[in-house]
């Protein structure tokens, strides 16, 4: 239901976001990039639809999840690269 907000933790920081949003959106609300490339560059989503794999983060302890394909859930723990 639109308008309802959900609280997720991104890198230990609580982010409130509209229910149904993607984890990628929650990360963007925090203003941080999602991953470091193999040579250490910061990256953020490119395609928004699960094809580019730039949005990979750890969700509830499971690594390498595409954040743009996962809807937020109350209490979710998200960790980006540091």
């Amino acid at each position, binding site marked *: 239901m639109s308008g309802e907000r959900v609280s997720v933790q991104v890198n230990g920081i609580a982010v409130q976001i509209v229910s149904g949003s993607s984890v990628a959106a929650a990360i963007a609300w925090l203003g941080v990039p999602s991953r470091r490339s*193999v040579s250490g560059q910061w990256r953020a989503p490119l395609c928004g639809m699960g094809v580019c794999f730039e949005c*990979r983060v750890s969700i509830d302890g*499971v*690594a*390498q999840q595409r954040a743009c394909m996962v809807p937020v859930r109350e209490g979710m723990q998200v960790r980006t690269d540091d």
Partner: protein
Amino acid sequence: MSHYDLIVVGAGIIGAACADCASAEGMKVAVVEPGSVGGGSTASSMGHLVALDGLPAELALAKYSMELWQSLADLPQAQYHRCGTLWLAADDADLARIPAKLARLAAGGVVAQAVDAASLRGLEPQLVSGLAGGVLVPDDGAVYPPAVAMHLIERACQRGAVLYHERVVRLEAGGVLLHDRSRLHGAVLVATGCALAELLPELPLQPRKGHLVITDRYPGLIRHQLLQMGYADSAHGEVDSSVAFNVQPRPGGQLLIGSSRENRSTTREVSMPMVQRMLQRAFEFLPGLRPLQALRIWTGLRPVSVDGLPYLGRVPDRPGVWVAAGHEGLGITTSLGSARLLVDQLLGREPAIDPRPYDPARVAA
């Protein structure tokens, strides 16, 4: 222009190593390769450098070759990773084989130490509990073979070797006939791996298909190459198909998972039932693999000789023709030593290790 001291047929890791070694000795070398350098079995391989002790002659060649690999340890594109191998004893039967294994490795000059059950998880936290023990071989490692093959060919070419993007259709007296009907003249070294029968049908060579799965990056999850104690049995076994646990951590954190062997498969198609068997075996040792993301599955063909040891030396009844092929799953490890052995024999020098176990003449006997 078409006369050479040595014509190397095939630019996989074996041919590339031979071309590099021969050119370093001042020989005028031609390399003939129809595809890309390191693009055959070399490209599909795991790239492990393992002191495999299934047979004494296998261990001797591996040990000799791994000493030579040290000279390439700093080559960036080789991605050399001295991860060591942790052999795993699943049960008491495996455990009972450890003393003999340690003795074989010691006799071969390979540093190794027994690891008791309690210490296993300290070395490798992801291992399933309840394993009986293991053996740590700290000097084993892994490389990225196609880049090494390309580097060796480049090095040879810098010394004047010539790379022909061509196919040898026939061996002839004094040289080879190429597909474009031209000829090259000189001693010939056949290093064509699984395609050996096309030029040397008298040397039995069977392709043995294997599967590999590579995961996304999980840095630090697995620290050593892991092999189950029975791996060599699979490598030297005669059954139609077998799997043996083998996981290699790549430098970037990807995990390379093997191994499977099939004698009767004639295609390169991925067999999902075979992949399933292989992964089921892997889960027995590393249950933590299950949630990891697999990116790619591929197959490769191992060239298998009459007895699992490569053919390295003069080909009987073919003057001027030599062979370096049939390395099963140890081709990367033994490539540099094979090349040195071959070139020593070509130049009439005493090889560093006994060449007789690899003599192609053994086939006729």
